[in-house]
């Protein structure tokens, strides 16, 4: 399962937990999370046609950050945390370097 799909699932299950909330802080928190998921989806779509060699990596960063945000919200709002898949074979921290080195230095 991709990070973005999992982020959406976590949001869905967390949403059911707090459905019809009138708490302005819970409401705005969900607005924030929705943006993180949607921006990742928009970047994956962009990567399909964008000629830049790191466009897909940028989308992967957005999705990973959306997943972390969704997982934190799940824990905060439900007291539970769904286990996330291991990212050891594809570490997030190296992706910022890949994207940055291309845009700053033209190095791939």
């Amino acid at each position, binding site marked *: 399962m991709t990070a973005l799909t999992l982020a959406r699932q976590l949001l869905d299950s967390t*949403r059911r937990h*707090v*459905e*019809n*909330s009138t708490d*302005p802080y*819970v*409401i*705005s*928190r*969900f*607005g*924030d999370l*929705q*943006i993180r998921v*949607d*921006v*990742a989806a*928009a*970047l994956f*779509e*962009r990567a399909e046609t964008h000629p830049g060699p*790191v*466009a897909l990596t*940028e*989308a992967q*960063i*957005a999705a990973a950050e959306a997943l972390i945000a969704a997982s934190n919200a799940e824990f905060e709002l439900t007291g539970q945390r769904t286990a996330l898949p291991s990212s050891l074979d594809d570490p997030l*921290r190296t*992706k*910022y*370097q*890949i*994207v*940055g*080195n291309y*845009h*700053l*230095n033209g190095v791939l």
Partner: protein
Amino acid sequence: MSAHPQHPAHIIRSDAEAIEVATRLAKRFAVEASARDRERRLPVAELDEFSASGLWGITIPKAYGGAGVSYVTVAEVIKLISAADPSLGQIPQNHLGVVDILLQTATEAQKRYYFGKVLQGYRFGNAFSEAKSKNAGTFDTQIRFHGDTAQINGEKFYCTGALFAHLVPTVGNNEDGQAFIAFVERDAPGLNVIDNWDGFGQRTTASGGVTLDGVSVPLSAVIPAHLAFDQPTANGPISQIIQAAVDTGIAVGALEQAKIYARQARPWIDSQQDHGWQDPFTIAAIGDLEWRVHGTEAILAKAGEAVDRALAEPGEDSVAHASLVVAQAKVLSAETALLASSKLFELAGTRSVTGKHNLDRFWRNARTHTLHDPARWKYHLIGNYVLNGVKPARHAWN
């Protein structure tokens, strides 16, 4: 400022031409953007060039002689200009909003008349907001109808563009509290535009005051603007997407400078590198800014598509959807503009704060322009739809 443009404007024919013209103008506007900011030198000649280029008429529908470009294109045009000089990007924001209010609420004769003027190069300013009314959506300015004329009395502020306008669309309420817009000639008796904008950012927008003292206009110069929100129309999202495009432009401009200066920065002593651009933390920080700026641009384009759908098929759902996507663009553009314009200094080092570079203009502009309406309520707007299915309120700020 005369009530007429000096030269007729070029008429742009397509989306591609609009982008091409904006790209060319942005290059020219970038050259003295910093000097204009530093000296608070109002961009009078630049605005003449901007409106004469035809870019102020691109949203006029084809049926009225314009190009009727998509709002994806409008957002891109404003972003390109704002990356060079966000004051110039901001000045047409109300003009473009007014073109749409005309489309939504004016009579056929008024549309033909005012769209014709815009295609000739006439610029609309605005006298909408008031600094002293209860909140952004309330107006103490009065419009009263007597026979075939209307009288307007009141005091306005944040009147971006009014100083440079040929016509000043002015909002006033009738006895029943309904908002109307009167198109007041720039040199009309009783209209006084005050050049008193002293904000620390967006310094050359001349977003100061306007007073209206017994200003009289014929009824043919008045439109029932409240209809644009009584019914679902794209006007709120149109107003907002231009705001988001200005802030996206600031983010793009700031990131561009961040890379230029980060490349020149000295290497930090502990990095044991020969050049600043080899610093692994600098590289990662640029990577973080890049995806955020590209994500903001991608959502801005999606917002443009949503606005186009709301324009083509106005209804409760299409307008709510446009407001939601535009709100995402607002949040992201505000976040990214503030982040990029601050990180710029972190990555470029202490020498970048030297006054001669004037790099603080990016942050000053981002901080100032993103205050137009608070992003914190946009998270709430989106969340309230996601969680509770509540559609956004319809007004000029959603």
